């Protein structure tokens, strides 16, 4: 996994430089841009990190940027900053999933705290999405009969009940169950249920 980066967009060179200085002072890598477009044309979706952006920008402003990020499914955690103290815009940004809105001038420790939180969120998001990917791959290895069995298991039904429902012997169910746990690399049905619940809760393909 590549190193996390803090992307900074501000049209004011001094504010930009101050943020870069702050980010670098705690050993993080900063990349800075004077406009939203400059960032968008540079950013590669695979790069982990977070984004600090001024709301008032020449050309595309913060709100429009948030829209574009959503369209392009870029989930980089976003910290909005503004010198205007424009409440209406701040509310819009936060509703659009910005993790926070910070007024200029900001306190470094507050900013750093938010940056770290944002990076953690990004890490978690990326972790989660790799977990989901792995789960899907594992699920695809299951035979149709195993998939049917798994559904009954996740519903909390016993081997006997499942055998009766599928009109097969409890012993065969026993074998399917062992295969499922092996293929899904799960210790128990309970652990597997938890894993699936956590990662695939939002996706409908159970």
């Amino acid at each position, binding site marked *: 996994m590549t190193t996390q980066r803090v992307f900074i967009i501000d049209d004011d060179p001094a*504010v930009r430089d101050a943020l870069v200085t702050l980010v670098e002072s705690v050993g993080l890598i900063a990349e800075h841009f004077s406009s939203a477009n400059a960032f968008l044309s540079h950013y590669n979706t695979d790069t982990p990190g977070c984004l600090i952006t001024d709301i008032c920008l020449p050309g595309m402003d913060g709100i429009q940027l948030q829209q574009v990020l959503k369209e392009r499914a870029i989930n980089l955690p976003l910290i909005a900053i503004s010198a205007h103290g424009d409440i209406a815009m701040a509310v819009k940004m936060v509703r659009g999933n910005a993790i926070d809105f910070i007024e200029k001038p900001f306190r470094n420790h507050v900013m750093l705290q938010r940056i770290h939180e944002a990076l953690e969120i990004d890490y978690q998001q990326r972790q989660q999405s790799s977990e989901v990917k792995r789960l899907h791959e594992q699920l695809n290895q299951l035979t149709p009969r195993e998939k049917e069995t798994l559904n009954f298991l996740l519903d909390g039904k016993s081997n006997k009940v499942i055998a009766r429902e599928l009109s097969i012997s409890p012993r065969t169910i026993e074998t399917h169950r062992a295969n499922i746990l092996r293929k899904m690399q799960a210790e128990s049905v309970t652990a597997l249920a938890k894993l699936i619940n956590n990662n695939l809760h939002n996706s409908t393909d159970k």
Partner: protein
Amino acid sequence: MESNLLIGSLVFIPLLAGMLWLQKRNTQIRQQLIAAKNQCSEIHEQLNEQAELFRTMFDSAPECVKLQKADGTIERINATGLSLLDTVIPATIVGQSVYDVIAPEYHAAYQKLTASVFAGNTECMEFELITFEGRRRWLETHAVPLRNKQGEIKSLLAITRDIEERKQMSYQMEVQRNRLQTIIESEPECVKLQDKDGTILEMNPAGLSLLNAVDSSEVIGRTIYEFLNSDYHAAYHTLTEEVFSGKRCCMEFEVTGISGAHRWLETHAAPLWDNAGNVTALLAITRDISDRKQSEEKLRRQHNELAHVCRLSTIGELATGLAHELNQPLCAISSYAESAVLLNARPYGKDPVKVELILQKIVCQTERANGILKRLRDFVRKKTPKPQANQALSLIENMLEFIDPERRRQGIEIDVTYDDALPDVWVDRVQIEQVILNLITNAIQAIVLTPEVPRKLSINITDTDQTVTIKIRDYAGGVPDTIRPNLFTPFITTKEQGLGIGLALSHSIAEAHGGRLWYEPAEPGSLFSLALPCRAIST
């Protein structure tokens, strides 16, 4: 001849010869007598001719000729003399006393003259006559003694001329001089004569009172520069030179009177010529314009107050943008400072070079913030306008910096084009910046309020004939037809929150600078032109 005949009868014969001789002699004598007679009549004729000539001259002399006795009895007088007395009949005066016609107040003097002439002197005097028609007439007489063969003075011969016209003229002149003097003395404005180096030659009472002088001796002979405030010395010197070169001039200046009182004066100076065509003095009519100056000053102060209020109001409108503008460096400074503290507090791996770099950046940003504040302060500061040479471009750039946050917020492009080598304009910086800012904010507001128009504003600076013209054009809706005739009238506005003062004030500021502000529709959009002078206007 009878004696000759008697002698002939007594000694007839012997003396015949003698008789014949005598006869001959007689004939000779007779002839001589005839000759003498002829000669005599010739002389007589000559005498007659001369007498005639004398009489003709006497009678037809254009001046009065008269003979007079010591007691004043007139012996003879010519026709001109009679006409001076408004008569044609010699008997009315001849044989009468001259004192009958001389105005009584001159009798004594005339007696003295007569006595002097009879003592052998030549005399001359002026006196008034009262004619037979009762009119008074001015005469000038030259009197000489007239002697007989024995050298005795028998008469006074006087040649007298009518000097009524001359007297009238000099009387008129005197009247005029008096009238002029009265006018000057009672003239409510200062009238003064001054020489080339500024010395006051003459000054009327009104002038003296302007300088708080009680007596003319306090002022006459002193120089005007003693009273003139030093700011005006150079200009007054120039005025004096102009006047002495034959021109009329006018100027306003301040003086301090003898009592120390301060006054504003306005003077109209003209050259005073002599007959040879040389300027001998500067004649000036000067009036006290302190009251006018005071009300002008009051008006100007009110105008400046209004301009100041408008600037504050403009700043109010731009406050959000300015706060943002100021927030940027503050934000950078606070962040830099905290970073520096953090770097310095590291237990290991301290980086003094980096800390110093950050500190320098802090200084930079402080200056930036200071610059913004200074610009703001200069703009809202209340001060007396003072025209100076300014670059039109720098005035515009200053205001573009001011408006920049607002411009960026509204996403408007502003392009500025200008002629090469623009001359400086002679204006008060803040006031003209205010006009420019007013025009730019108006344009930005027009763009923002009109949907779907180019978010663009063009500024163009040109220079023609010592006038710099700044044209500000937008591509929005333009000024509505209903507003256009009253565009520069106060309290006319299309804006809900506008006072309607901005353009009216801008217009009067432009005019106060000797410039102009006008509007033209620009299909699409508006074009405002601000023309500014490059030289000082004379006040």
